[in-house]
């Protein structure tokens, strides 16, 4: 049975909210009189079955405010959604709390009409998210290929997707997942900007507005516009293979200056390949330099697993 933890310093409001939630089917309602008490309750339960499924908190409280509670819960218990109850005049803080990760908010003036429905909606979302996490936990092999246009705004979505798959399949710990994603982002940015759009490091080091104009110009002009970026990912619990290919003229990676050489230390660009080589187990280019293959092995897997 889902547990709702209600956090409010005013006893009368706790009673009101408790009464509203008691009308819900199969809900257990618990109370905390402050943010500190709520955090102590969370620390005591840890990630156990008695952990609350959702927190409903007042925004304005002495001690830890609802906003601060949201921030701390997001950081330490990201699986627990927080719903804020807001008073008149606190809309701006509520917006900030939503931006910081609160799941929803209900103005106190309309608690009767909306609180229970909002809690039920958020609980449905939690159930779906947990179910999806369980499903992804069963994933044995992820294999997908994207053919991307030269739209920089796609990079974040691509990396987020890869992050989710690599994390779910358990190839490596979360810190290594981030390292993999940093390396992949560098490879994709190199391929898009230096490969397909043929933009140079010198252009990048110049005026950033001018550089942006160059990107806009080339993404709409041939031969650059029709070039595609191929990103192929194959990941299992034992190994990950990440191939990024552009349709530009390629380059000779052996001629890139070593950014850690003291002579090159002050150069603005040139660190992408360094990060790729540092964070992946193996990085290799094809003979024309327009395709990079990066391998990541599960730390516990034998070496041949990623071949």
């Amino acid at each position, binding site marked *: 049975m889902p547990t709702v933890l209600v956090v409010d310093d005013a006893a009368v409001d706790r009673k009101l909210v408790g009464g509203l939630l008691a009308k819900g089917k199969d809900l257990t309602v618990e109370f905390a009189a402050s943010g500190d008490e709520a955090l102590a309750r969370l620390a005591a339960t840890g990630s156990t079955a008695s952990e609350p499924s959702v927190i409903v908190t007042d925004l304005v409280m002495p001690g830890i405010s609802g906003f601060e509670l949201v921030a701390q819960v997001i950081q330490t218990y990201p699986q627990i959604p927080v719903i804020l109850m807001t008073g008149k005049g606190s809309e701006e803080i509520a917006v900030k709390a939503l931006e910081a990760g609160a799941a929803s908010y209900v103005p106190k003036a309309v608690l009767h009409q909306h609180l229970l429905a909002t809690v039920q909606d958020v609980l449905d979302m939690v159930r779906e998210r947990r179910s999806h996490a369980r499903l992804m936990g069963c994933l044995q092999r992820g294999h997908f290929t994207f053919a991307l246009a030269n739209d*920089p*705004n796609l*990079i*974040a979505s691509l*990396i*987020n997707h890869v*992050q989710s798959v690599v994390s779910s399949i358990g190839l490596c710990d979360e*810190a290594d997942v*981030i*390292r993999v*994603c*940093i390396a992949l*982002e*560098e490879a994709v*940015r190199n391929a898009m900007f230096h490969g397909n759009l043929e933009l140079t490091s010198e252009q*990048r*080091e110049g005026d*950033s*507005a001018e*550089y*942006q104009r160059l*990107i*806009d110009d080339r993404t709409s002009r041939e031969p650059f516009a029709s070039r595609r970026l191929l990103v192929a990912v194959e990941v299992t619990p034992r190994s990950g293979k990440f191939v990024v290919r552009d349709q530009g003229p390629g380059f000779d990676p052996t001629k890139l200056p070593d*950014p*850690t050489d*003291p002579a090159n*230390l*002050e*150069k*603005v*660009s040139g*660190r*992408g390949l*360094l*990060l790729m080589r*540092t964070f992946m187990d193996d990085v290799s280019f094809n003979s024309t330099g327009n395709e990079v293959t990066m391998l990541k092995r599960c730390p516990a897997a034998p070496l041949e697993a990623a071949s």
Partner: protein
Amino acid sequence: MIEPKYVRTEQTGETLVVAPLFTFATFAEADLASEWNVVQQQIETPAVKNVIVDLGEIPYFGSTVLEWMVQMWKRVRAKGGKLATCNASPIGREVLVTARFDKLWGVCDTRDQAQEWLSSTHA
């Protein structure tokens, strides 16, 4: 006034504190370039001598933030100032050390330590 989405700045004395707010998960090139231009203009003002890059808002970063830092470092150095970073996550610190940036500027744990480093006689 529009709240910055990708980089926040605040000035303390003659030090400009620059806090990147984006990772690869939150990214829009054109908007990013626009906010970065504003930061560059701020650094050029006479009131700014030193820069602290506070990395505490982002758990990780790649070459875009590294490039920004080198550009900022060059700008403040040209004015006779210094740059220090602070609050990097363990992976962030790993990236800084991998790129050997700890040889160029102060890599500090906290903003106070960064401020102390700027006040010291380090090159």
